[in-house]
């Protein structure tokens, strides 16, 4: 019954609610697809088969008893493996947490399950969400369902690839510098990073605490809106979550957008952008224009991207991001020391310092070590002002640019990534080139703003191209409606051939 997996989350929810499909059938169907395809793709670190079937059965019993199923009643979802679940493991794709069992559920996970979701398993990522290709996983890389020789992007590569390959109805990812939007773009699905403070971070294993947000990865805008409605909202356990009402994003989705003002970010529309991606952005601008929106050019001077004589790009935003994120990471990851939980060296040690050093040396991968060292350096006495404090000032300037832009526009339009999915191994030798994968997405994290990547067709190589929309803080209703407008104009995003092969 291949068609069941072709249903969107909203479509499947409707079918389950109507009794056309049971939650158990849906869970079995997806678990079967995981069995068939995940050996090749490695989207999942763990599959919670028995628990998923049990939860699906419970949903069906509720339906039989005439009880409400909840807004996600019976939907099989996948969770990025840096979001805590009280069942199974939460590994962050790191050897240091390879056997870590969280004693509690993240708030976002509790909210999904309270809404009737069925969690299939935990998806692969770049270790501790540090990377843009999922090649930094401490276990194995995830592959792009459009071309298994290519990366799915990262760090939420497992969630994006699983959503694209129809191995789940939708998924949760986390986004610190583009980790939802960039893999969504590479895999041809919708990825939404909410406003900082919109979704509780409680239970999201911290990487860059002032930048991290949990968000949905889904096949279409409506499904993303559905998931956001469930996970958004104030949480007394997260002091940085904001106490503001949560709109029904889904109900507002198809309201007409009158007098929409779209800003085309001139700094992102440079000559260095791949022509095919540039053309996709232009097509979207035209679609907005055709729908009656006013499209103007706007400037984000401090998010400018410069191409050096060697063709290598540079950006204030990327530099600022890597100082802030790595400084926070160096502190956030200090707790993995082999004392209280996680990997502890098996070798004999002479003192506690050696226990720390060996456990961390064995448990962390290259990229994580690199970021811990850079962050530690940036916070050291004598360097704090030159790096961390300077980065905070740049961050303020980037924010100010957005404030000015959103005084004139409702949404900003630009590319999600500088290129389409690249082959495995293409950038692993040069971390700086890899860091530039986030060049268009990073500013939104620094400014705390919501952003969404929407599929905008395929390249000549038959690889998905994504475009990014950004809006002002807590303006997700308009952001989602603008994304929906594009989706309608461009037509439904295609599924990768592999997903339909059964």
């Amino acid at each position, binding site marked *: 019954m291949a068609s069941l997996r072709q249903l969107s989350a909203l479509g499947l929810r409707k079918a389950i609610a109507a009794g056309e499909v049971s939650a158990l059938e849906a869970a079995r169907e997806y678990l079967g697809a995981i069995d068939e395809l995940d050996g090749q793709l490695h989207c999942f670190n763990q599959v919670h088969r028995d628990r998923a079937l049990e939860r699906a059965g419970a949903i069906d019993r509720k339906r039989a008893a005439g009880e409400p199923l909840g807004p996600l009643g019976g939907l099989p979802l996948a969770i990025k493996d840096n979001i805590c679940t009280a069942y199974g493991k939460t590994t962050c794709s790191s050897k240091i947490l390879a056997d870590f069992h969280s004693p509690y559920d993240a708030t976002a996970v509790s909210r999904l399950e309270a809404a009737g979701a069925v969690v299939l398993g935990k998806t692969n990522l770049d270790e501790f969400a540090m990377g843009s290709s999922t090649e930094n996983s401490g276990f194995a890389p995830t592959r792009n369902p459009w071309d298994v020789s290519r990366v799915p992007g990262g760090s939420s590569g497992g969630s994006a690839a699983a959503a694209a390959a129809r191995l789940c109805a939708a998924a949760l990812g986390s986004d610190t510098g583009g980790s939802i939007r960039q893999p969504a773009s590479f895999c041809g699905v919708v990825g939404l990073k909410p406003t900082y403070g919109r979704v509780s971070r409680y239970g999201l294993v911290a990487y860059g605490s002032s930048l991290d947000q949990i968000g949905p990865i889904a096949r279409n805008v409506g499904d993303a809106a559905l998931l956001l409605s469930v996970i958004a909202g104030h949480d007394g356990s997260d002091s940085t979550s904001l106490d503001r009402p949560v709109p029904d994003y889904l109900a507002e989705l198809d309201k007409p957008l009158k007098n929409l003002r779209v800003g085309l970010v001139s700094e992102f529309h440079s000559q260095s952008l791949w022509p095919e991606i540039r053309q996709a952005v232009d097509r979207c601008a035209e679609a907005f224009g055709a729908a009656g929106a006013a499209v103007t050019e706007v400037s984000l001077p401090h998010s400018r991207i410069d191409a050096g004589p060697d063709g290598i790009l540079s950006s204030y935003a990327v530099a600022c991001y890597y100082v802030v994120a790595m400084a926070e990471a160096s502190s956030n990851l200090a707790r993995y020391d082999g004392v209280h939980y996680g990997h502890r060296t098996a070798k004999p040690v002479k003192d506690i310092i050696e226990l720390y050093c060996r456990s961390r040396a064995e448990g962390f991968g290259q990229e994580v070590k690199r970021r811990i060292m850079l962050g530690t350096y940036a916070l*050291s006495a004598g360097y704090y002002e030159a790096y961390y404090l300077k980065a905070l000032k740049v961050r303020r300037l980037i924010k100010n640019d957005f404030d000015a832009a959103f005084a004139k526009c409702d949404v900003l339009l630009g590319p999600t990534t500088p290129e389409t999915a690249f082959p495995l191994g293409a950038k692993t030798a040069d971390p700086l080139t890899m860091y530039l994968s986030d060049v268009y997405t990073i500013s939104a994290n620094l400014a705390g703003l919501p952003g969404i990547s929407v599929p905008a067709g395929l390249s000549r190589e038959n690889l998905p191209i994504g475009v990014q929309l950004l809006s002002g803080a807590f303006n997700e209703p308009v952001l989602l409606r603008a994304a929906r407008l594009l989706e309608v104009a461009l037509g439904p995003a295609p599924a990768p051939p592999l997903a339909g092969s059964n």
Partner: protein
Amino acid sequence: MAPTEAENPTSPTLTTVIGLEIHCELDTRTKMFCRCLNRFGDPPNTHTCPVCIGMPGALPVMNRQAVDMTIKAGLALNCQVPEFTKWDRKGYYYPDLPKNYQISQYDLPLAREGYLDVPLPGGRTSRIRVRRAHLEEDAGKNVHDLAAHTGVDLNRAGVPLLEIVSEPDIHSVEEVMGYSRSMRRLVRWLGISQANMQMGHMRFEPNISIWVGDGQRIFDESAGYFTPILEIKNLNSFRSLEKTVEWIIDYHRAQIIERGRDWSLEKVGKQNWGYRDDLECCEFQRGKEEAHDYRYFPDPDLAPVRVEAAWRDRIAAEIGELPIARKGRYLAQYQLSDKEADALTEDAPTGDLLDSAVKLGGPVRRVVNLMMGRMMAASNQKGSTLAQLGVSAEALAELAGMMEAGKLSASAADRVMEVLLAEGGKPLDIATRLGVLAVSDASAIEAWVDAAIAANAGPAEQVRTGDKKAKQAFGFLMGAVMKLSGGKAPPAAVKQLLEQKLSPK
């Protein structure tokens, strides 16, 4: 300026210069950043949760009660309480610190630039400036007495900790002790800490240097120099604080004689030393080369704290009369001795008990004697404050009043107090039940007096004749009457009758 002491006419003057950090656990219901109970003495790791044991993904949420208490301490210490403060992470690796960083306050503490007036023996007072008071989370405890391992108990991890940092205004052991004891009295008075030393509620970290040179011009480099600053961490009793400061001062002096200017802050820098309780001496731990770089930065998990005027004013209104003012009032208004005034201002409820009993008509002297006598003994025995004994102001006032009116002898009052301490009740009821109320029937009293005189003719004669032992004999006769009456004869009436009957012929 600082008191100085001349060593001998040819050597330079030595001035002890001490700064003191005091860590004080706040008596909140729950921990600083989670909802676990803040409780001492329970089995290890029973008050823990994902937040205070630093589990991946857990986040801190600020305890407002602890912030209130810190503001209260700051205001009582005459500090500025700025409108904007924030939380910072202080990074260092230690097994009792689960996150390997401590949430603290770095450059913007909740309170800064205040002072404490410290009463010293002989009626002197020293004003010690307070540089800052900030709030942080306590670490857990490493437990070393297990067979093959070191254990970590995280019940204390995340308990709110107030850190009060003085300016280097302390110049003697006497001042260190006066300052630290006054600080304990203050935090107890404010009700923000139990400040129980046995439970580790208070810890001291003195840093000690000696200024060699003109004591009137400390910090003026042309007038002298400092010896290295030696900092001693984690002293958890007044005794160890006193021993440490004495030991370090002696050590500095010996070094000055032995090494002269080689033992200077400029050449040696700061050092950390530790106190060995078993040996009553200090030992070197690390020098400036091994000093920690804590890599402070603002904690992104917590919003800055804005203390608006209304919040500050609400706390200020709760403070009331402080212990030094209260003590002054007791000396002047109640004519208490210094010792009594100190004892009865140890904590606010004890002072309040005295004030209420007096207000209810209890004669001051009698009330104070009751509190300083049997009640003090009971509080020492129980390790509680006087106010915690449960004797009400009403009972205290009534008991003192009955003594004053001659209705109870001192020994009878003692017995009533014992019952009050054990089971409470009304003093009149208790005295009646015990049968110790004084008899007011004049003929009965006279009969006891006559019987006592008849049975003790010798002493009676001594009183009558004004013998040199007359006073002693009179006391003996008083005792004999009281004994005959079973303690029920009112002493004043007995005294009067005896005097009348034995007046010199």
